Every structure is written in structure tokens, then in C-alpha cells.
């Protein structure tokens, strides 16, 4: 970190008045980077934070003098070591890339060539960019892989990308990017595709590299917690503009701009009590005992006998009437499969489901109409769960007519009422799903679920595709409706903040098993499982960074 008040030396990177636009096939212009200016000194790490669509990835590529097909750097300058990347000829740019500035992209699997061994791909950079002989490149590539924390580099080098784990792949990509020891390293969401445990390990590596290298880093991510851990300074972007910029502790500790405060509001802060209303612990609504499920792999003629890996093992929990139960887990933890079993998309292999005291059949097709009405679901992607050819008002009215036999007029009146409760204007009733925003679409999906007047609503990652501001509002409205109707919620998400705000009890899942379950307050304050503790640690960095005792900076 630069000592306060020290004289500012010539910055390594200096961006001035940068404007980048995308052009549609019809020639419509969409400006995604708007008058962006900043400096970066050697040894410094800048975090660029923003939601999807904020222009941060476009900006990241521009730092290598690159604009993807369909986009153009319209004006401004990007001075790297005194040379302007915007006006540099393609040949001179290519000479710079990999040596002076390198990039670590978001998806390590698709960013490596699938038909070449990873060792060859690291050697390639060393041979063609660092000018090493084949033999020297081969030796150096093994060193690099070791430096990236890969044990047995000889073995790893012989593998193809698909044979490596996500963390190993990202380490290989890092080795490629660092092969020529570039002065500036641009990382675009480098850990977003990884699970939390692997993410922590890769972040540790990046942290180590940052301290060992003299070069500067630009770290692009939507995750404020990652910025809190890695960066000295942060730049918050919204709609292509810089909203706020400064040292991480200052910006996260005392955000000056409302948008920064909003983003920070979606980061978890475990102080005080959970905001969730305690559930009404009346009678038990849903009871799950010894549930097990595995996806059978298709076995083809003359192939080895099919092997199955259990997706869910020995799941036991119960859910009271009107209670909100959170299910937390990363992708691959089996949480979505659990939702599928409760709603009857999937039939359990083992175990029993009981609903309101009666046995619940596995497949939805085998359930009574009444059971199907009483258990409803809202999906992650509203656009694909709504019928694109029907007006949204009709789609919400349909369950009322189907399950409750309401006539057209009454159903319409009830639809308008549901729309109002969710803050949707009645004008939207005659629109098609595509004509609505993402937040409006998801609210229509929620209205459709409530139209059946269910006792249990399964929500699978319903806010993960939405912006922070929309997300907060939607959760408030869902909580209000749930309380009013006395509906129980099974809230499946990877986002601990959503659980903290909404759920009175929580289940933590990993690899198809329940690691722990209990009151949200107790689990989040004193997690009994090290995995839960690690999840919480990772999720609260942004809100703890301003505290003096925070060890991350």
C-alpha cells in the first residue's frame, strides 16, 4: 500500500476519459463504459466492483487494448508505461500483450484449448512470448506450475483441461498469464466459477502472488467480499460510470454514494439478530425422513455398466406451517435436487415425504390435485419459467381457475390484487413476459405461485439473476406476502445474506448431505461446522473490512 502523503510517482497505468460502446446489428449504440478515468501505480491492486452490465468486463479487456467484436473504444486514452493502447497498431499491441499486460479470464475451462495438454499451453507462452527454447520452456513451465501451488506438476502438465479440477485449471491459466511476469495483471472474475472452498485457496494464491510480485493488479468482480480480501483500492461502477473510488477500508467503511451503500447492503453483516421473523412453530407441515436420490447415468450398448453417484444422502428435516426454512449450499451441493424432490419433479430413491400428516407421493403426477395445489414453486430464471406466448395476467389467473374454479371475472380481480401486493402496476397484465424487466418477471412468477394459495412455496435461487436493488425489494415483498398468507417457504440459495434476512431456520448442505441445521441466529453466530464457518468468513469480509481488527488487509 502507498503510504499516505507519499509523493505520487509516475503511475504504471493511466486511464483518461475512456468511452466504449457496443453496436447492435441494426447499428444502435449502447455505451457501456462512460468517461472512466483512473490511475494505478506499480505494486497496487485495484478492485473494480459492479453488477452484471456495469461495463466492468468491457473495461478489463480494454486495459489490454482489446474490444470484442461489435464493440469499439470511441475515445479516451489508456497509457500503460507511457504508451497509449488505444492508438497503438495491432502489431505493437500484440508485442505488449502477455509481456507487459496479461489477463486471467473468468472461465478457466473454456479459456484453455480443450484438445491440447495443459503443459503445452503454458510452454507455448514461454516459447512464443518469452522467447525460451523448447527445453527451457518445458523446465520453466513446471516451475511455474509449482509456483501456482500445483503439486506433481509433471503429472498435471500431461493432463487435458477437462481432466483437472476447477481450481487446478485456474492455476494453469494463472501460470500462462504470469509466464512473462507482466507489469499489469488483469483478472476478470477469476474465482466466480469456483466453489467457496476452492475460491478461498485460489484467492490465497493470488494474495501471495500480489505480495511477491512488483507488478500491479486489476481485479474485476461483483463480489465485494473478494475485493475486501485482495485489493488496496476499489472502484465501484454502475451503468458504465465510476460511482465511487478510493481505498477499500474508506469506501466500504463509510460509503459516500447511495449505490455503494446499496451494494454493501447486499453483503452479509452478522450483527444484531437475524432480521427474519421467527416462524410459527405450530403443527409440522412437511416432514422429510431418510431421503436419498441419485441421477442414473445412461448406460449404452457395449459400455461399462452404469455407475451412479448419490446426489442426496440421508436427508432429514421438518418444516412448520408458515415457517421460512433456508437451504444454503453451493452448486453441486444437491440443494436444487432437494427442491425437485419436494415439488415432485424427481421421485426419491429412498426415504419418505410427509405433508400435513399424510404420505406424499414421489412424482407430482402421482400426487393428488390438492397436494399439487398446496406445493408451488418459483424458479431461478423467470423468463424460461413463464410461457413466452401468453400474457402474464392470463398466466397468473390460470391456477385460480384450475384449482379454485374461479370464473374469469373473479380471477381477473384476484390477479389485479396479487399484482398490487407485489408492487406491479395493473398496466402490465396484458404484457408478454419478454416485455417486462427481470424483477417484474420474477414477481409475476411469484404471483402465479401464490395464485394457487399454496401452503408451501419452494423458491430456488429466485434472486440470483437480479440486481442488488431489485433483489432487496423483491425479498421484502415476498416476506410480506408470506406472512400475510401464512405460507411456509423452502428458500434455496447460495446467498447467505438472503438466508439471514428471510429464514428463521437454516440447513447447510454440501455434497448431497446436510452438514448442520438449526436456528439461523445460532448457526450464523456460532457455526459448529468448519465449512459453515468458512462460508460465513468469506461472506462477511466486505462488512468487516472497516473494522480495525480485520486481518484481511
Amino acid at each position, binding site marked *: 500500500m502507498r503510504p499516505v502523503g507519499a509523493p505520487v510517482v509516475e503511475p504504471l497505468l493511466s486511464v483518461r476519459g475512456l468511452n466504449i460502446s457496443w453496436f447492435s446489428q441494426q447499428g444502435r449504440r449502447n455505451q457501456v463504459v462512460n468517461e472512466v478515468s483512473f490511475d494505478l501505480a506499480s505494486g497496487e491492486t485495484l478492485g473494480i466492483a459492479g453488477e452484471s452490465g456495469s461495463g466492468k468486463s468491457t473495461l478489463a479487456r480494454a486495459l*489490454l487494448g482489446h474490444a470484442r467484436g461489435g464493440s469499439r473504444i470511441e475515445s479516451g486514452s489508456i497509457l500503460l508505461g507511457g504508451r497509449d493502447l488505444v492508438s497503438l497498431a495491432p502489431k505493437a499491441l500484440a508485442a505488449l500483450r502477455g509481456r507487459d499486460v496479461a489477463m486471467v*479470464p473468468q472461465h478457466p475451462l473454456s479459456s484453455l*484449448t480443450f*484438445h491440447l495438454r495443459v503443459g503445452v499451453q503454458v510452454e507455448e507462452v514461454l516459447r*512464443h512470448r518469452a522467447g525460451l527454447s523448447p527445453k527451457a520452456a518445458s523446465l520453466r513451465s513446471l516451475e511455474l506450475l509449482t509456483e501456482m501451488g500445483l503439486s506433481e506438476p509433471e503429472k498435471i502438465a500431461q493432463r487435458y483441461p477437462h*481432466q483437472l479440477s476447477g481450481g487446478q485449471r485456474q492455476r494453469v*491459466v494463472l501460470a500462462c498469464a504470469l509466464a512473462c511476469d507482466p507489469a499489469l495483471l488483469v483478472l476478470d472474475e477469476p474465482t466466480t466459477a469456483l466453489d467457496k472452498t476452492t475460491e478461498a485457496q485460489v484467492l490465497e494464491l493470488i494474495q501471495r502472488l500480489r505480495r511477491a510480485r512488483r507488478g500491479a493488479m486489476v481485479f474485476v468482480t461483483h463480489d465485494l467480499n473478494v475485493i475486501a480480501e485482495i485489493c488496496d483500492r476499489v472502484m465501484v461502477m454502475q451503468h458504465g460510470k465510476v460511482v465511487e473510488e478510493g481505498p477499500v477500508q474508506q469506501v466500504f467503511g463509510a460509503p459516500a454514494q447511495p449505490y455503494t451503500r446499496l451494494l454493501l447492503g447486499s453483503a452479509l453483516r452478522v450483527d444484531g439478530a437475524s432480521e427474519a421473523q421467527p416462524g410459527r412453530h405450530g403443527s409440522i407441515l412437511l416432514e422429510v425422513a431418510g431421503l436419498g436420490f441419485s441421477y442414473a447415468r445412461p448406460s449404452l450398448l457395449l459400455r461399462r455398466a452404469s455407475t451412479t453417484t448419490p446426489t442426496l444422502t440421508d436427508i432429514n428435516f421438518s418444516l412448520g406451517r408458515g415457517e421460512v426454512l433456508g437451504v444454503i449450499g453451493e452448486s453441486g451441493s444437491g440443494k436444487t435436487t432437494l427442491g425437485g424432490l419436494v415439488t415432485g419433479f424427481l421421485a426419491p430413491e429412498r426415504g419418505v415425504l410427509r405433508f400435513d400428516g399424510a404420505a406424499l407421493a414421489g412424482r407430482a403426477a402421482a400426487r393428488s390435485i390438492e397436494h399439487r395445489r398446496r406445493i408451488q414453486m418459483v424458479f431461478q430464471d423467470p423468463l424460461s419459467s413463464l410461457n413466452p406466448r401468453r400474457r402474464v395476467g392470463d398466466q397468473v389467473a390460470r391456477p385460480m381457475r384450475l384449482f379454485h374454479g374461479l370464473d374469469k371475472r373473479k380471477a381477473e380481480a384476484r390477479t389485479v390484487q396479487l399484482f398490487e401486493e407485489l408492487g406491479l402496476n395493473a398496466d402490465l397484465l396484458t404484457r408478454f413476459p419478454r416485455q417486462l424487466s427481470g424483477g417484474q418477471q420474477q414477481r409475476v412468477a411469484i404471483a402465479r405461485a401464490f395464485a394457487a394459495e399454496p401452503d408451501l412455496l419452494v423458491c430456488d435461487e429466485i434472486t440470483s439473476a437480479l440486481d442488488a436493488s431489485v433483489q432487496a425489494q423483491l425479498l421484502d415483498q415476498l416476506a410480506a406476502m408470506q406472512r400475510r398468507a401464512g405460507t411456509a417457504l423452502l428458500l434455496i440459495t447460495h446467498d447467505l445474506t438472503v438466508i439471514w434476512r428471510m429464514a428463521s431456520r437454516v440447513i447447510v448442505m454440501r455434497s448431497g448431505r446436510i452438514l448442520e441445521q438449526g436456528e439461523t441466529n445460532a448457526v450464523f453466530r456460532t457455526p459448529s461446522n468448519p465449512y459453515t464457518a468458512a462460508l460465513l468468513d468469506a461472506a462477511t469480509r466486505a462488512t468487516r473490512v472497516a473494522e480495525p481488527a480485520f486481518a484481511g488487509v
Partner: protein
Amino acid sequence: MISLILRRGALSLATLFLLATFIFFATEVLPGDALDVSLSADEVAMMPPEVLARRKAELGLDRPILERYLGFLGGLLKFDLGRTIITRAPVADIVAMPLRNSMALAAVTLLLALPVALGIAMAAAQAKGRGLDNAVSGAAIIGYSIPEFVTGLLLIAVFAVWWPIFPATITASTDDPLSVLLAAAPLAVITTIIGSIAYLGRILRVGMIEVMASDFVERLHLSGIPRWRILLVHALPAAVIPGLSAAALYAASLVSGIVVVEMVFAYPGIGAELVRAVTRREVHVVQAIALAAAICVVSFNLLADLGISTLDPRTRSA
């Protein structure tokens, strides 16, 4: 890899066995037998019954169907495809040379068309959406949609009539050496090449455009890796994979399906032989040619599968 070859090989043999069975029953059993088919209604009506019976016995058609089927299969194992009904010549001898000629034409076509198609596809993908790409795409659609007899006749009109540098039809005979035959058939080769370049170029161009927009190409580009290396070492194998199955089917159809070109130029290939056999109702020859076509399709598919698994390591470790 070896187990994959064995597994695929066994599957291919099983497929061929089923096809052989189907061909046998379809041609021998359905409405009439080989003799009935080769004789016209008048001939059958005029022939005394005992002559008919004797000829049937000569051809072995009086034996029960199952026995004939087993005989057919046994013959296949020894490459004995039976004899023709009219001349009593071994079918294998009749089919061998035209088959060789057709395979030679297909091989020369592919050897010349493939590199050109690849080059065009790469150039077009580089200039996606711009003039060169549009020109190439348009030309490919035209080249692909004009029937080969039109291309062939056009070529004859230009290069054999107006500007007579090539012969219009082929004067070489069926069992001339290949060098003589192909030297005599430049216009036939050009005709098939034009169609092939258009077809293969279209497939490869799409594959190439997809690959050039992929994440790994962008990463390499942003690492400053030389353009030629990105194209040849990284993008090309990746772009060829999805087109390989389609190209294999196309190659198989080249061997068995260039009837039109062979007829236009009087090229002594298997297509011309098939037409002759059908008009003369030589059932055994039709069977043999159908089998040869089936073997082509199956073995080219096998080659494509093996090629894909060589290029794409993801398909290997299943």
C-alpha cells in the same frame, strides 16, 4: 484407445451384418426371385415350365430361403458375390474395377477439395460478416445448390466445346491404369471438386467462426500468441471436429453417389455400373454394389469416430 477401436470395429461389423441381411432379403425375397426379376413377363409366359425350373435350379433359386441366405453370407466371407444371371460371370469381377475407379475419383476429389475448403473457411472466418466472407458464403450456396449435371454440362460447354482443352467424355476403358483414367477425366474431377468445396467449405466455415469466438481463442489473442499459431494449432483442430461426421458421410456418398457425374462424362465407375445392373435386372450385381456402398458409409463413419476421438480428448475418457 485400443479398446475404443475394438468396440467401434465390432459395432461396425454388426451394422454391416444387419445391412447385408437387409439387402439380401430386400432384393431376393420380395416380390420375385432373381430370375423372375431378370425376365420380362412375356419371356416368363413363353418359357416352358421345365426350362424355367431348370434355370432356377442352375441359379440355386429352388433351394429354401434360409439355405440361400446362409450361402449368401458364407459367400460374402470368401468375397464370392455369386454370378450374374445373364453372362454367368463372377459378380466380384464385374464390380471390382468400377469400384476402384469410383474410389479413385472420390479420393482425388477429397485430397484436392479438403485443403482448398479449409483455406477458404479460415479466410472467410477471419473476415466474418465482411466482403470476402459474404462472397465466399454466397459462392458456396450457389456451388452447393447447382446440380452436378448442370455444372458438368457447363464445364463441357466451356472447356470442351468453346475452348477445347479437355475431352468432353472419357475415352479410357474400365480397366485402364488409374493414371490413364484420371488423366482422361479432368472435367469429371473438377465437377465433383466444385460441389465438394462448396459443401465442405460451408461446414468448416461455421465451425471456424464458432471457434474463433471462443474463450480460449480470446485468451490466446490477449496473450500475444502469434496469429498463425492460434489459427493452425488451436482453432483448426477444434473447428474440424464438429464437421468430421458430416464430412465422412459426404465422402461415403462421393464413392457411391456420383452416378450423375459418371453418366455425364461416361466415367467407368460404380455409379454407371449400378445403372447398367438395374436396367438389366442383375440382382446379384445390385446387391454387391449396395453392399459396397454400405461398407463405404460404415467405414467412413468409423474413421470419423476414430478421428474425433484422436482430436478431442474429452471423448476418450468416458
